[in-house]
C-alpha cells in the first residue's frame, strides 16, 4: 500500500541485527529493520525514553513515533500515539497523504435533503491498538450549505462521532470553512458548500476481540439555503471492520 504510493518503510529499534533477522524471517518481513544498538540515533532524534532505569530490559527504547520523511530529509509529518500498545496504520498515513484507501475498505453513503455524504475507513482490517483513518466526502446541491466551526448557538456544525466504547480516541478534522454573510439573519457564519472532504482518525482499544465487527457512528449537520434552514439532523451509520488476531512477538532468548 505504501509502495504503490512511492513510499518505503523502515523500522528502528535497539535490537541487534541478529534479533532483527530472526524476527524478519519469522514474520516474513522484507522491509529494512534497522539496529540502533546503543540508541544513539534514538537519542539523536530526541525520543529516548528516559523513564526506564538502566538495568531494566526496556532501557534504551524510544518513545514510539513514526516519521514521514521526504527524500531530501525534510520531515513531512509525524504520527504518534500516547500508549506504546497503540500504533498508527500504514493505511491512515496513505489516506492522509494521498487520499486513497484500501481496496476492500467499506464505504457507506448517507443522504438527506440537499446533502450526500460518503464515509469510509482507510482500511478494511486493523489490529487492536492501532489507529485507522476515516474520510467523509460531502456533496451539497447548489444553493445549499452546512456549517463549520466556530459557530454560535443554536446552529449545528458538521461533526462525526463514533459511539463505540472500543474506540479510545477519535478526531475528525473538516477543512477550514468559508465565512458567508447570511443576509436574512444579518450574520456571517462559517459554511461549506459544493464538495469537500474531512479526514479523521480512530484509535482502537487494546485489547480488542478479533473478528468481524460493525463500528457505529453518527453524522451531525444542519443544512440551509439562502431562504430555508432545516433543523439540525443526526444520521447514524455503521461500517464493517475486521480485527486481526493479536500477534505475539517471539521470545528469542
Amino acid at each position, binding site marked *: 500500500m505504501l*509502495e504503490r*504510493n*512511492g*513510499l*518505503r*518503510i*523502515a*523500522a*528502528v*529499534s535497539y*535490537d541487534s*541485527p541478529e*534479533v*532483527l*533477522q530472526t524476527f*524478519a524471517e519469522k514474520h516474513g*518481513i522484507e522491509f*529494512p*529493520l*534497522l*539496529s540502533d544498538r546503543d540508541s544513539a*540515533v*534514538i*537519542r539523536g*532524534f*530526541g*525520543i*529516548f525514553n*528516559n*523513564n*526506564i*532505569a538502566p538495568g*531494566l*530490559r*526496556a532501557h534504551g*527504547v*524510544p*518513545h*514510539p*513515533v*513514526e*516519521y*514521514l*520523511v*521526504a*527524500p*531530501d*530529509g525534510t*520531515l*513531512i*509529518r*509525524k504520527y*504518534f500515539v*500516547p*500508549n*506504546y*500498545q497503540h500504533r498508527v496504520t500504514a493505511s491512515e*498515513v496513505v489516506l492522509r497523504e494521498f487520499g486513497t484507501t484500501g481496496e476492500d475498505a467499506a464505504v457507506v453513503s448517507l443522504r438527506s435533503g440537499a446533502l450526500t455524504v460518503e464515509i469510509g475507513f482507510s482500511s478494511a482490517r486493523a489490529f487492536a491498538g492501532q489507529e485507522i483513518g476515516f474520510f467523509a466526502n460531502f456533496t451539497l446541491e447548489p444553493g445549499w450549505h452546512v456549517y463549520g466551526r466556530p459557530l454560535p448557538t443554536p446552529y449545528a456544525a458538521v461533526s462525526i462521532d463514533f459511539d463505540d466504547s472500543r474506540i479510545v480516541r477519535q478526531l475528525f478534522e473538516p477543512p477550514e470553512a468559508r465565512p458567508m454573510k447570511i443576509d436574512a439573519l444579518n450574520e456571517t457564519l462559517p459554511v461549506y458548500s459544493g464538495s469537500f472532504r474531512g479526514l479523521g482518525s480512530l484509535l482502537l482499544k487494546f485489547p480488542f476481540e478479533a473478528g468481524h465487527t460493525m463500528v457505529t457512528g453518527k453524522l451531525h449537520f444542519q443544512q440551509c439555503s439562502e431562504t430555508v434552514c432545516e433543523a439540525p439532523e443526526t444520521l447514524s451509520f455503521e461500517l464493517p471492520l475486521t480485527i486481526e488476531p493479536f500477534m505475539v*512477538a517471539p*521470545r528469542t532468548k
Partner: protein
Amino acid sequence: MALEIPADLAEKAAIMREFRRRRDAGEPVSEQLYAAHVNATNDHYATGPDPGQHIPDFTLPDQRGALRSLSNLSGPNGLLLVFHRSADW
C-alpha cells in the same frame, strides 16, 4: 538535546518490574497497575523533530547487516521511518 533523568526513576522501575513479573508469570494485571505502567512509560513523551525540519542524518545496519541511510531507504515520495520498542519482546 540534554537528557533529563527524572527523579522518580526508582519508583517507575518498581512499577515496571512488577508489571513485567506479573506478565511473565501469567498473573493477572490489574487495571490500576496497567495504568501506572503506561503512565510511567509515557512520562515526558517526546516526539522529536517537527514537520518542516530536517531529520538528523543516520546510518544503521539492517537485519542483513547492510548499512542503510535515508538516501538508500527512501522511495521516490519518501520514507515512513518507524521507531518502535523491540522486536525481541
